């Protein structure tokens, strides 16, 4: 087992992303550091567009994740609906 992680800038939009990540990855660890939020999980972390839209109450384009993303660790898979990090 290895950890995958992402870090987001600590801002308004990111808080919705964290909520969505917490919902879709129940064992996720969220660590608030100065100006950033580090989210890690064993082996796999998935961000779902639908869940984010639910939290935000509006349409949200998954690719706009890039605006707030600070760093990642893991293999990336990105579709219209999901952004996934994983280790094999």
């Amino acid at each position, binding site marked *: 087992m290895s*950890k995958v992680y992402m870090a987001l800038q600590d801002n308004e939009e990111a808080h919705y992303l964290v909520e969505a990540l917490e919902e879709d990855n129940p064992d996720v660890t969220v660590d608030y550091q100065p100006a950033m939020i580090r989210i890690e999980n064993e082996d796999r972390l998935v961000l779902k567009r639908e869940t984010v839209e639910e939290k935000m109450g509006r349409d949200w384009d998954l690719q706009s994740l890039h605006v707030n993303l*600070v760093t990642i660790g893991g293999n990336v898979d990105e579709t219209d609906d999901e952004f996934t990090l994983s280790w094999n």
Partner: protein
Amino acid sequence: MAARKLNLKERYSLLTRDLDWEYSYRDKKEIFPYEDFEGIKITDWSKWEDPFRLTMDAYWKYQAEKEKKLYAIFDAFAQNNGQQNVTDARYINAIKVFLTGVSPLEYQAYSGYAHVGRQFSGVGARTACQMQSIDELRHVQTQVHAMSHYNKFFDGFQDFSHMHDRVWYLSVPKSFFDDARSAGPFEFMVAISFSFEYVLTNLLFVPFMSGAAYNGDMATVTFGFSAQSDEARHMTLGLEVIKFLLEQHPDNVPIVQRWIDKWFWRGTRLLAIVAMMMDYMLPNRVMSWKEAWEVYFEEAGGALFKDLARYGIEMPKYAATAIAEKDHISHQTWSTFYNYGHAAAFHTWMPDEKEMDWLSEKYPDTFDKYYRPRFEHWREKEQAGERFYNPTLPMLCNTCQIPMGFTEMDDPSLIAYRQSVYQGERYNFCSDGCKDIFDHEPEKYVQSWLPVHQIYQGNCGGADIEKVLSEYYRINMGKDNLDFHGSPDEARWNAWHNLESAEERLKKAG
């Protein structure tokens, strides 16, 4: 009937792969002349995967959004005299190191990716490199813009690009990138995209930038994280490149492993300066260098290399040495700059009592035993009005070009010396890693432009060291260099905050 909306994968394919064409009247080898000479075998470029399926239209849209956010913060920072609200003027010196040592590397990265983005015959790789090239140009521009504000109030920022090309310690980052850019396109990708961006830059951009925020420097954290938002894409490119090369042909595996070994080692040497910035130059500390190293190399890198093991790739050759060095590297590097503080374009100082206690706590096995007595001695000297400066020129490693201040990890108070003799001439190194790099490609590294030797050869404006520093390097002597205590930076800071300098306090007490 309305056309079905294309999904991300289809859009991406249309806007990248389908823009490629067959070469009908020119030989492919003639068009892509650099693709073969490194020994890398590519059998099928169409196997290149792009995990971020970013098309140019989406790229411009999100980059524009990032820029808007960024410049709004720069404006607010300037309007609110943000320079007065950082924790301490000493902190600004970390930003000077950044502007002179790191930002020019962004420019080098821009040029490097523009070059390799032209040289690959696979369109997926070309597109990714093209975007990264534009990103890197954005990084250098935003960094120069952000720090131009500090240039109005502090010394040492004014000649950063000139200094990057000439100043002794800046030959370390400069030669690192020169080495990568003068390699073939595949080595460049393994060097910069994988070893540097994926494995090591987190250590620079994540904990250090978080530290900038913690020290009230909103301008820096914003450009740092804005750059990092591109970095996630760069890191992914780095991982993709590795997987692609390893899957293309088994003969690629040993070549890639050697590049990983080399560039991991070059990268850890380069990061010695970041280690020092984190442990010594941030008045409010988020985490120690050692802690950052554990999270971002040992843990994250461990997971990565476990993942790559299925291809036959192992941990970088000198990872164990680098791991042992986490207890020493920041202290040794700060010692070096303290020794040669008269020859640097930023200020150095001795940590105060509280800061030394923090270092003792974070480095229980090494700080009190090896470093604290030295630092206390230096502090006493300074208090007696005899601030220690090393009156000589240092011996440099022929590969990393850093003064030979690193020690043996099984005997940490003994300098590590390594030597090779090539065609009758001696070459000296700081480590096995640096020696290996030379031994593998001596014809490249016999060309090292070692600043100390260049001074002795008379190529830096003559034999007078004062003149080398002031005229050849363009350090404003007495302003940019020397100890923070007694500097014009300190005086200005104290005036803004109605603080008295230590000397004035002493005078009054006396």
